[in-house]
């Protein structure tokens, strides 16, 4: 037994991220770890790799039967654990060899022994049957090749346990195959691998065993042969939809927003399509949920419609039947679209300013006489918002920084309500707010729809999408792979569409 993690429990303020989780790994084995967004996969891996130091969690970690305590990433590295991150941690300007030996360059009298470094790199790469010139700058390699360099780097540090977190998310099919070839070689060399992926296809092709995490608990660990994809999916989502949602009975009006054949291209690779031929509509008074796994293109879809995408966008947008061109957020606001963005601190709030300065940010001109602001009018409107949205703060002058997450989110919502929108995009609107505040928010979203606004809700939390939406679209790798009415949607069906089965 190479690795054993026993009854790991990790507590964050207000949430139990992991509860009594067990996980083990044999030499030469590939053990897949699957689960919904937020099931606790990355928390578990952060514990294993020393990001969360020993003592910040309960439970024990054994390597080769010996109990270990990692206080830092360095400690874990010394014990032979290496992570290959989703976002590569290579220095683009440096060469392959320089990257592999970064921070531990072979040197004599402070001078780097370049020949030795390049020779050793060559050896490592040859072992993997992979040929690149060690002097090539990393930036010139494809993402797939960079990933392999990253693995080579880990191996050069004598890593025996490799954590692969969504390693194929940026790879093409042939690159994925090359990667799998290499992983198979590593198995023969007795390296143990933990493979995290949303793509069940891959999980079933590369792994030997599969562990399913749900809500921070291990629900199943078994050999691949004993499981089917559908079983894994129902294990992942097997949770009852909680009754924190309002009883929905929306009456729809006309179509508020219609999108036809929307294609969105990557900002850096102009030929790569992030979203492919997306067409959908949403009616007045309807809540349209958009489900999908991370990286499926949900946020990109909203940003592209909102006129905030730097890359190329093609397709047509109709608002109340009229074709519109939206080139900037200002155009979108003029067309009565609001966008409650994810990550409120980064995209939503001017955090060190007062509530009223934030609530009127998108509609300041409405409160101004000519170009002169009318603070009294702003404060009045803000006070009304604070009453109707139940924003708990001493006064409109309170600094947003000092509010709780839920109240901050209400400030963002209030900002958009003051623009009097007909179409509202909500991107992960309840992330990082506590359960009570979430429930309040759900009722607010419901009442926005009842007022006749068209709502597009993006959420990684499946129960949220299921509980709130009248209709659900599922995105997988930039395509719509499923559309379900509220009555026919089940977690299993959505998960199937989201994993591309």
């Amino acid at each position, binding site marked *: 037994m190479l690795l054993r993690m026993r009854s790991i429990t990790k507590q964050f303020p207000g949430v139990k991220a992991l509860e009594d989780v067990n996980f083990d790994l044999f030499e030469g084995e590939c053990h897949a770890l699957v689960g919904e967004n937020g099931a606790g996969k990355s928390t578990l891996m952060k514990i294993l790799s020393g990001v969360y130091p020993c003592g910040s969690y309960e439970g024990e970690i054994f390597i080769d039967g010996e109990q270990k305590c990692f206080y830092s990433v360095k400690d874990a590295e010394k014990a032979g654990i290496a992570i290959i991150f989703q976002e590569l941690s290579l220095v683009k300007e440096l060469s392959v060899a320089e990257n592999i030996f970064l921070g531990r360059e072979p040197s004599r009298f402070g001078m780097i022994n370049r020949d030795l470094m390049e020779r050793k790199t060559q050896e490592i790469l040859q072992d993997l049957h992979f040929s690149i010139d060690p002097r090539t700058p990393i930036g010139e390699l494809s993402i797939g090749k960079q990933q392999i360099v990253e693995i080579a780097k880990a191996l050069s540090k004598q890593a025996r346990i490799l954590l692969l977190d969504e390693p194929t998310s940026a790879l093409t099919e042939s690159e994925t195959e090359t990667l799998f070839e290499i992983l198979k070689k590593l198995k023969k060399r007795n390296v143990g691998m933990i493979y995290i992926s949303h793509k069940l296809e891959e999980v079933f092709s590369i792994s030997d065993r599969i562990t399913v995490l749900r809500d921070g608990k291990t629900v199943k660990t078994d050999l691949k042969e004993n499981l089917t994809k559908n079983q894994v999916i129902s294990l992942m989502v097997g949770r009852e939809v909680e009754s924190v949602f309002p009883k929905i009975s929306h009456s729809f009006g006309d179509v508020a927003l219609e999108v036809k054949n929307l294609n969105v291209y990557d900002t850096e690779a102009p030929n790569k399509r992030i979203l492919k031929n997306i067409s959908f509509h949403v009616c007045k008074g309807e809540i349209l949920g958009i489900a999908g796994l991370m990286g499926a293109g949900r946020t990109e879809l909203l940003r592209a419609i*909102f006129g*905030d995408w730097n890359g190329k966008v093609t397709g047509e947008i109709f608002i109340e039947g009229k074709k519109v061109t939206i080139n*900037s*957020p*200002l155009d*979108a*606001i*003029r067309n009565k679209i609001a*966008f409650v*963005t994810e990550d409120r601190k*980064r*995209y*939503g*709030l*001017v*955090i*060190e*300013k007062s509530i009223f*300065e934030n609530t009127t*940010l*998108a509609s*300041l*001109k409405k409160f*101004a006489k000519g*170009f*002169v*602001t009318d*603070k*009294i009018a702003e*404060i*009045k409107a803000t*006070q009304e918002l604070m009453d109707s949205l139940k924003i708990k703060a*001493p*006064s409109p*002058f*309170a600094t947003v920084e000092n509010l709780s997450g839920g109240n901050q989110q209400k400030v963002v919502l209030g*900002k958009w309500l003051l*623009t009097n929108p007909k179409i509202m995009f909500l991107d992960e609107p309840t992330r990082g707010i506590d359960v009570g505040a979430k429930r309040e928010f759900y009722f607010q979203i419901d009442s926005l729809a009842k007022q006749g606004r068209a709502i597009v809700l993006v959420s990684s939390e499946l129960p949220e999408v299921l509980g709130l939406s009248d209709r659900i679209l599922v995105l997988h790798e930039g395509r719509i792979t499923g559309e379900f009415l509220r009555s026919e949607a089940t977690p299993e069906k959505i998960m199937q569409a989201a994993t591309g089965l």
Partner: protein
Amino acid sequence: MKEEKQRELQIKLQTSSLRAYTMLAILILIWLFFHWQTGGIFLTPRNLSNLMLQTSVTGILAIGMLMLIAAGQIDLSVGSVLGLAGGVAAIAITYWDYGVAGSIILAIFVCMLIGFVHGTLVAYFNIPAFIVTLGGLLAWRGAIKGLSQGETVPILNPTFKAIGQSNVPANVGWTLALVAIALILFLTYNHAKKLKKLSLETTNNSNNQKLLSVFRAIILSVAFLLFTYVMNLEGGIPFPVLIFLLSALAGTFITNSTVFGRHLYAIGGNREAARLSGIDTKGSIVKVYILLGMLTGVAAVIFAARQASASPDAGTLKELEAIAACVIGGASLVGGRGTIFGACLGALIMSSLDNGMSLLNIRDYVQEIIKGTILVLAVGIDMAGRKTRG
């Protein structure tokens, strides 16, 4: 809830006003110290008039710089642009016979054009402001050296010189002071009336606030009367000082009460959020560079008129003085924070140090070391205070 409201008002009072009062106290301490050290020379009408005159050019630059810094931008080239514009004005009036109005308009126009170029490069071509204006610092200095062929250009026109050297007649000064006081009283009254409309004024604390605003109005009025009286003892308010005060008034109005001003702080505070809220972030950045250019042009004309000439190295290091004034006045170089009042006070503190140390015959190099130390110290103390406040 009521208690919370009171606490909030107290906190607000502390954070926004405390800094201003602290700075005023520091300024007064500096003045008293120099007055004592110079054996009673510092606080004489003659020296105070001189001090105000010295403050005016840096102060006008600091007003523009503050708006730029609030939007999270920076301009290192204002000193060179000031030199260029002064030179252009001098050449235009002395060699090209443009007349007073023509040469002033030309100088200001040149500065606004440069602001437009800087702003466009920063906002639309995504070149960092630091780099664009560092380039400007070199290039515009080179431009004036070339234009003047390295020579100092004399200004002979008496009307032009009067801009920098004349004073406002005493009775006009008094009239202006009375107008200012009337304005202060009107605004205070108006503010109180508006507060009453909101439900905020029911707490005890708002009574305190009302008292405080009355108190502030009285202090300000007395300050204006005293200022006019002292300046009139020395022949009246110097014309450049009047322009400085008017610029400060305009700057305060722009930052406090216009849509544009609010947008500047939002852009500086969180550019992403501002953009996603439909604010034209790029356009606003270009506008604020043009605005700074306009003020630089005004400062350049005053500077040249005071010297009655334009030398090719006029305005050297002025950009750093303007930035230092903003920072001492509490502006954050990250953006989103700072007031015109603070920047003006910062400029006054800087020139008080200059003036006082010169009176004490402190050697140039020592003066520079002291000013540098004080700049770093002021920001250091500010950061320490911020941390404890959490």
